[in-house]
């Protein structure tokens, strides 16, 4: 037997969660774009998409966030005001497993040398009701980085579509059980056929890691990254990329310190005040992104910094596919370059 949520009861779930005080967000279609946004009814949900354009990262690490306020009085005395807001309790309904899995991975860095109270206060306020993927596309690669289209990792409640279009329900941990108790209209039913996408394994992760260890200086990077235009598209749509910049903005006498998303692909990212840039060329910046995800982060914190959602692959304006690059590395192409394409004198 398993617990079943009839599809028609999704509406009741949204209503129940909202009346319990949660902001409910899920995939919402606005023209050509599907992003995670607030919903007031299950009818707002675009559950037919494989994946939203943006990730759930914005609910724990907003693209801009005030971390302090400061005033300067007429005498020039500066006072710093606390800016910690009480985050709104939020349920993400229709989260994807590759998004949910990103949060525990990022917890490691936000709790590493100090505890990031902004991250964790939002984290504490967010509940994830994940729907396992019934479909995938050619950019999905969760199974190549240890995930799965029906992985429960990071979720509080996991819904898996049945052949009849209803959802098999699984509560994970205490938080999940608490949340599921608020779901109306659950019933027991015999285990049914589940609709779960078959995401093929696209590369051998350990072979890619071995290749990274050997190829810091390989011409592979120059060849690969020549087309990279150095925007922040891949990192900003990524559920695990978490780098930020701190800026002071606003009028001189009462300003805000804001934490904004930043991207290692942009040349300013490592630009020193002296004018020196330790990553002077795009190939260095591109190499950093791959090395950080697949070598540095796992060797320091034990987890690969990628959940295989494929958003960076889909979003890259110059079709520089991380999936292709890591597959090339795993296949040993950094060692034996097939053509001289991309090799230029400097």
């Amino acid at each position: 037997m398993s617990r079943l949520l009839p599809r028609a009861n999704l509406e009741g779930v949204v209503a129940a969660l909202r009346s319990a005080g949660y902001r409910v967000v899920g995939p919402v279609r606005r023209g050509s774009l599907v992003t995670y946004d607030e919903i007031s009814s299950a009818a707002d949900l675009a559950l037919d998409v494989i994946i939203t354009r943006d990730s759930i990262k914005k609910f724990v690490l907003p693209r801009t966030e005030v971390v302090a306020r400061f005033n300067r009085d007429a005498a020039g005395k500066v006072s710093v005001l606390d800016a910690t807001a009480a985050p709104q309790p939020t349920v993400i309904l229709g989260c994807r497993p590759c998004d949910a899995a990103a949060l525990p991975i990022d917890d490691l860095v936000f709790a590493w040398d100090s505890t990031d109270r902004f991250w964790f206060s939002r984290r504490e306020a967010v509940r994830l009701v994940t729907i396992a993927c019934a479909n995938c596309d050619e950019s999905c690669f969760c199974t190549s980085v240890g995930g799965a289209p029906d992985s429960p990792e990071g979720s509080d409640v996991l819904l898996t579509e049945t052949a009849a279009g209803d959802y098999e329900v699984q509560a994970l941990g205490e938080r999940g059980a608490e949340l599921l108790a608020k779901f109306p209209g659950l019933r027991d039913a015999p285990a049914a056929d589940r609709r779960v996408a078959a995401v093929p394994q696209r590369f051998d992760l350990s072979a890619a890691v071995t290749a990274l260890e050997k190829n810091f200086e390989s011409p592979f990077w120059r060849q690969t990254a020549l087309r990279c235009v150095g925007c922040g598209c891949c990192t900003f749509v990524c559920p695990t990329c978490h780098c930020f910049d701190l800026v002071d903005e606003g009028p001189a006498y009462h300003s805000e310190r804001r934490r904004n998303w930043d991207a290692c692909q942009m040349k300013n990212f490592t630009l020193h005040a002296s004018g020196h840039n330790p990553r002077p060329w795009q190939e260095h910046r591109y190499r950093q992104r791959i090395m950080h995800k697949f070598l540095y982060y796992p060797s320091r914190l034990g987890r690969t910094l990628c959940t295989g959602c494929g958003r960076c692959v889909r979003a890259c304006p110059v079709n520089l596919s991380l999936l292709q690059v890591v597959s090339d590395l795993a296949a040993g192409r950094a060692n034996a370059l097939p053509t001289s394409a991309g090799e230029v004198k400097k």
Partner: protein
Amino acid sequence: MPAEGRQLEKLRHLARHALESGAVSLVIGFAEGTVPGRAAPLFCTAPADADRLIFDGYCTLNLANYLTRPEVRAHQTVALVARHAVAKAVVGLVQESQVDPTRVRLIAIHCPDLDGLQQDVAWTVADGLQTLDEFLPTAAHLHDQELTPERFAAVAQVESKSSHDRWDHFAREFDKCIKCYACRNVCPLCYCERCIADKNQPQWIDTSSTQRGNFAWNIVRAFHLAGRCIDCGACERACPMDLPLMELNRKMKKVVAERFGYVAGYDPKADLPLVTFKKDDPEEFIK
């Protein structure tokens, strides 16, 4: 062999020959993308690389963007697989002294404007490697099509709104902006070594992705491209959040055409309307 196949053979032959003969040391074109519906920029330095070149309706990126990259500048002479929008961007770069026209060759592709993505487009490739001066007369007739009303349908729609509704429209659209700067980074005319958005002493515009910061960025960019944007649409296609950036750029294009009778991308020797001072300017405030 079907017509497209013959054109593709010709394209590859031109590129291969250009590299073999030493006429250029780099050919920038397109290869098959990693997923259906995408094409990937390809940098050919060896004659054999030319065998990977393709062209179809997904080759919408503006390759002229790469001409100002230091890695590309290191080459004495570079050839671009250039549909009209790419050549127009080269005109802009020459006009603004960013690119030396004697160091650029075009493998000219004649095809309809690639505004939206569509795989099947009819295209032909011109005979031989062309200089910009050789190319320009072959595209001069397209000037008349730059200002057709169809191109400004979205602009007209925005213009028809009340100022209040226009504000709401752009507030809603700019709200999606995540400040990834893909628009800027794929734009061939956005070549500033240090963009105003990256300056913090003084800081001219908010870097934060707030309403204020997003309005500032998207409007400043449109203004900076006024009279310079060659209407290729690369920014709008690159935007991961589907901002209708060409509504702004085409509005600017329309105003510049009305006020100055100027369309960017046709004459590398023309004065740029917004950076040129004339003593007989009819506007009083400027004197």
